């Protein structure tokens, strides 16, 4: 404590001297990355002028939205307002950011927000040119539900309306995409729904990959819980979907056409649109950043955090976005005070449910290495393959606690 008091004292002098110039930070995007960054900035430096630009008054969280599809949760449990962000002293503008002009963000209303540092946290957009036949209109018949909200509700209603004995067809994209274990958690929880409510139905997951996150854990669980109900078709067995046709509800691979009663197309993705408009996305559609402060490699006065950014070994997850946002806030406060940001350590933990009382995890610890966030060797990894049911139940319980904790920290 004495050390702490001394350090606060030592810090106070330069901070007061620079009180007139603490700066303006504008954040685009009010999800796990943007809202966390906004609130952390105000907690670290109350004198900062922090603005958050987010058109949607209600944020619908993707983590646990697969449980909504499985009938285990309601969509309202996924929804959060920006009230807690405003209570923290952040100015919230309910508009869409459409461009960046010098040190100014331009909104769809024509309003302009000047910044000293800009944080882009736009999450993902669907890459509408990435899968032939898959358009915004097609998504109303074959939902992606990869941005939670109306799409999640639509897919759940379709599952509820389907006759027992129907075929559900899902497709998963090639890497990289939001939430690497997400398609496999989803297929698990839809399988749980079918097993309990429509046991004559079948579920096929067509995959553009041969390997995926927590693969052995998922496959062991599927063999135990959903035998004969769920089929995973990898790339090497012709799993890659090359086009879809919403008119006859088919998903085509190079080898076959799959006609679905309910189709869930998880399409190719890219960084949210503002990233390209701001000039921080590269040809991959994602945003390269340096790994200490998450400043864009293309425009260093802009930070990019969360799913839109290329974060080396860190996956695109809500946990990662929240962790990156806190590091980014610290780096911004340092930059504005003329200090170099401190090298960070970051953690990610992704919980997945394969059934209501059956959770599995993957975790990692990361630090900047050769210009990228890299795994710290020897740390991280997945739940043990041979764990007893009590272990799976404990991870499922912790998953729920994690969701309540991270949403409380993010949205207040």
């Amino acid at each position, binding site marked *: 404590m004495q050390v702490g008091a001394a350090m606060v004292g030592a*810090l106070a002098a330069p901070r007061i001297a620079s009180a007139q110039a603490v700066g303006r930070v504008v954040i685009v995007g009010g999800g796990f990355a943007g809202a966390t960054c906004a609130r952390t900035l105000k907690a670290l430096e109350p004198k900062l002028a922090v603005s958050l630009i987010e058109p949607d008054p209600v944020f619908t969280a993707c983590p646990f939205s697969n449980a909504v599809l499985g009938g285990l949760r309601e969509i309202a449990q996924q929804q959060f307002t920006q009230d807690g962000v405003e209570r923290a002293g952040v100015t919230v503008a309910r508009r869409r950011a459409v461009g960046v002009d010098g040190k100014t963000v331009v909104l769809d209303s024509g309003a302009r927000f000047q910044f000293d540092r800009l944080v882009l946290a736009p999450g993902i957009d669907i890459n509408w040119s990435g899968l032939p036949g898959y358009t915004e209109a097609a998504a109303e018949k074959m939902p992606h539900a990869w941005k939670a909200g109306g799409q999640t509700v639509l897919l759940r209603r379709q599952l509820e309306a389907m006759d027992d004995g129907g075929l559900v067809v899902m497709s998963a994209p090639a890497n990289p995409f939001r939430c690497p274990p997400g398609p496999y958690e989803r297929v698990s929880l839809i399988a749980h729904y079918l097993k309990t409510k429509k046991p004559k139905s079948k579920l096929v997951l067509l995959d553009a990959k041969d390997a995926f996150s927590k693969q052995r854990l998922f496959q062991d669980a599927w063999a135990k819980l959903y035998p004969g109900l769920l089929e995973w078709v990898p790339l090497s067995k012709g799993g890659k979907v090359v086009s879809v046709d919403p008119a006859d509800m088919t998903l085509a691979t190079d080898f076959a056409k799959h006609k679905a009663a309910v189709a869930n197309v998880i399409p190719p993705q890219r960084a949210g649109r503002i990233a390209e408009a701001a000039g921080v996305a590269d040809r991959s559609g994602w945003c390269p950043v340096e790994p200490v402060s998450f400043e864009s490699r293309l425009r260093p006065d802009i930070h990019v955090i969360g799913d839109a950014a290329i974060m080396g070994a860190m996956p695109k997850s809500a946990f990662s976005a929240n962790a990156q946002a*806190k590091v980014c806030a610290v780096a911004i406060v340092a930059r504005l005070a003329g200090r170099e940001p401190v090298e960070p350590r970051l953690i990610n*933990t992704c919980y997945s449910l394969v059934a209501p009382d059956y959770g599995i995890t993957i975790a990692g610890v990361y630090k900047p290495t050769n210009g990228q966030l890299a795994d710290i060797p020897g740390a991280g990894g997945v739940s043990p393959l041979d764990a007893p049911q009590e272990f799976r139940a404990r991870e499922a319980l*912790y998953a729920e606690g994690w969701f309540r904790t991270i949403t409380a920290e993010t949205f207040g």
Partner: protein
Amino acid sequence: MRRGRWIGLLLMGLSGGAAHAASPDGPFGAMSCSGCHATARGVDTAIPRLNGRPAAEIAAAMRDFQKGERAPTVMGRIAKGYTDPEIDALAAWFAAQRDAP
């Protein structure tokens, strides 16, 4: 008051890192922990809180987790990412924190 104290201590942690020439031994990695370990009051979770717990208790738990003791779930995997001095810095930092309102 509590809020001011929390901010002060947080800044202490950060400025501590800066004052020691961006030392990787600083408690910087602590900020990720609050994704799982609640710092706001009233959060219903089975995951233990860390703020205000004795530093020796937190450090002992981390070292046990590294060895696979205490039957951890994810913490066995996460603790292995931290060195001994990092664990001590984290533990001291959490011991000095108080929950946010």
